[in-house]
């Protein structure tokens, strides 16, 4: 599902086209990772911007032999998500995120989508932290179970079974609350 991308091309300016490709490919993944993780569009945009800013600033530190670019990028994203929740835990309750406007869509549809995302975020917040993150990596970032195993300390089969249980539970709770 996910392309294992090469980031060492970013080290030189003459390969700028590769940066463009990486950006186009990875931006929706990172953004949706944070959307699934936080349930909030504005926060997802802020954290996505922070992830790419860090990646761009430290692009010289990436070493190809240490793993795929995707793994490196999502390591940054996960750390930022952890920091975000660490700071937020003391300030705001988890499910009090205000809805934010969605651009480029009819208002009703945008509001409905936002409400659904809020509802999903509320259900996700009831799951253990690890399951929340796995759901965001799988369905937001679109990573394979193998790629998720590479990012976490879990085995590929373990990732699969945890995700299966979490997804079933979420779906059942979604239906129950209708």
């Amino acid at each position, binding site marked *: 599902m996910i392309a294992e991308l090469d980031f060492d091309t970013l080290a030189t300016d003459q390969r*700028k086209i590769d940066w463009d490709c990486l*950006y186009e490919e990875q931006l929706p993944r990172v953004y949706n990772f944070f959307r*699934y993780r936080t349930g909030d569009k504005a926060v997802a*945009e802020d954290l996505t911007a922070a992830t790419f*800013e860090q990646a761009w600033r430290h692009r010289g530190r990436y070493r190809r032999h240490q793993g795929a670019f995707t793994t490196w990028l999502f390591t940054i994203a996960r750390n930022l998500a952890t920091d975000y929740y660490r700071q937020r835990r003391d300030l705001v309750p988890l499910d009090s995120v205000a809805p934010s406007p*969605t651009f480029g869509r009819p208002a009703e549809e945008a509001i409905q989508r936002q409400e659904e995302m809020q509802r999903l975020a509320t259900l996700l917040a009831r799951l253990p932290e690890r399951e929340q993150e796995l759901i965001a990596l799988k*369905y937001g970032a679109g990573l394979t179970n193998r790629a998720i195993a590479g990012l976490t300390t879990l085995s590929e089969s373990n990732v699969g079974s945890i995700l299966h249980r979490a997804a079933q539970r*979420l*779906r059942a709770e*979604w239906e129950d609350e209708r």
Partner: protein
Amino acid sequence: MNEDDFLRRFWQAPDPAFAIKLKQELTPPPVITIRPFFAPIDQTRRTLNILALVLAVVVVLSPDARSRLVSQPG
């Protein structure tokens, strides 16, 4: 709809305006500076310009020098 499809339907493309703005912030276009027309130039160029101007004035004003430049002997 199975669990996978159910969870994937919340996926949403980022706002294009956000994507463009972030990209511009990450890779700002190179700054092009244009030297003003009357900007200071270095001393050597200034001297050469003055010599060229003096030579041009001499050629224009002196019939002798002009004829020597235009008509070759022989």
